[in-house]
């Protein structure tokens, strides 16, 4: 699926829940299902610090795709992390740079990407984009 298709399917999945608590229950389920990352990756250099919760982001290049793995110590954030990985992981740098995670707003959880320092989610999106930019530059320089 393209990034666009993934975002649309996430929005569709959430639209069946009208009640807020049900949306959060679903997010918590997603968070619980997310594969934990290798403990060796839960190091300070992978930590995207937020005052309210911590997010660890690990990445590697496979061919011309970036594979992201991530985790959080807060379950709701972990659920959102799982969704962000569905959207952004295993993509080319250009695909990542060309997309915004608008699904978060569409499913009504925009407050979790607000620019306050309250959680690492906004910083995680920013970091993903920075990795994409870095890999793009590297591949341009190689040519």
């Amino acid at each position, binding site marked *: 699926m393209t990034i666009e298709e993934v975002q649309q399917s996430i929005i569709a999945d959430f639209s069946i829940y009208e009640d*807020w*608590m049900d949306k*959060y*229950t679903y997010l*918590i389920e997603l968070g619980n299902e997310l594969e934990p990352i290798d403990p060796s990756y839960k190091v300070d250099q992978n930590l995207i610090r937020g*005052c*309210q*919760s*911590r997010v660890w982001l690990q990445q590697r290049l496979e061919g011309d795709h970036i594979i992201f793995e991530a985790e959080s*110590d*807060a*379950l*709701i*954030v972990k659920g959102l992390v799982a969704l962000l990985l569905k959207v952004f992981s295993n993509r080319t740098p250009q695909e990542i740079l060309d997309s915004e995670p608008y699904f978060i707003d569409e499913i009504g959880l925009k407050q979790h990407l607000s620019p306050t320092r*309250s*959680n690492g989610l906004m910083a995680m999106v920013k970091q993903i984009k920075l990795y994409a930019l870095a890999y793009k530059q590297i591949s341009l320089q190689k040519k």
Partner: protein
Amino acid sequence: MSFNYQDIRKDFPILDQKVNKHQWVYFDNAATAQRPVQVIEKIREFSVKTNSNIHRGTHFHAIKTTEAYENARDIVRDFIHAGERKEIIFTHGTTESINLVARSFCEKYLSEGDEILVTEMEHHANIVPWQMACERHGATLKYVPFDDKGELQSDLLSLLITDRTKLFAVTHVANTLGTINPIRELIRVAHSRNVPVLVDGAQSVPHITIDVQDLDCDFFVFSGHKIYGPTGIGILYGKRKWLDAMPPFLGGGEMIDRVTFEKTTYNELPHKFEAGTPHYVGAIALGTAIQYVLQVGLDPIASYEHHLLNYATEKMKALGDMQIFGESPQKTGVICFQLGQIHPFDLGTLLDQLGIAVRTGRLCADPVMDHFGISAMTRASFAFYNTIEEIDSFIAALTRIRTMF
């Protein structure tokens, strides 16, 4: 309980609203408190009826505003039973008050090899300014630890004080643990070793009667917005002997006597430490807030809040799988807790969905988090306009949320 909280709540119109379709329950009073209409009206009065800069004019409204401002200073002096009005400095809050002392007192009295003593349960505002002062002067910062119940290990105080200790800064009530420290006794110990004491009263002033002369503290600080006043205003009380000896903090208008490019001389107290146009509306409104609190009565307030604390603690413990951080027998209405394995961010987010406001995170107290080896906490903190019914809603919410994990 003769305390009529239903009438009290009418004085706080902001409480009557829905958040996320639920009746708003405001349990974040340790972060900031709400304002009664009397305070709101006073603020309005000083935009609609009277407003002019203070100490700077001889016209009608300038005099009226100045009188109101200086009257507020007298209200504060009386409230904490300070000896003189010159010992009451208006600042922008607790943090600024502490920074003022950390800068000004340390400039005069702190030298290389000296020590400043704080405690492990301090808010960052009562740690970082001292750290910065120590860095500037080549001094060392030390701290008195607390135990797992959240009580200060007071017997270590006399061991930690050395002949290089220049000041002891301690919180009256900890914003995380809710612990009320035995400051009269701590001050006595420090004074027996010639160490002056700064008391952070931000969390105590709304709940406990303060008498700075009886306590004999050298400095006492607090914020207006935690005692039902506006933000942007706070108090530094300092014993005359210290404030007279300390150099000015901020330079500018008002704090001067005479300015030339060769030399400037400074104004006397309290103006020496009140550079620039102050938040005079804030100061005047703070006076009104204090008068409101005194009218309700600090004793009934403390007694009622204690009732809320006990009720909430008992109900929370009955939920099971509940860890409470800070179980000193002497506490104000502050409960920091961990429910099962639920991360505070998750808990706070879901409580918010049910209209309940609590605080989550590190609560500006990293050392407290480190003490318990955790990354974050959830905190519920009460004021005298909270109710048993609200606590019941909170318990029901916790019960419901727990089933989601």
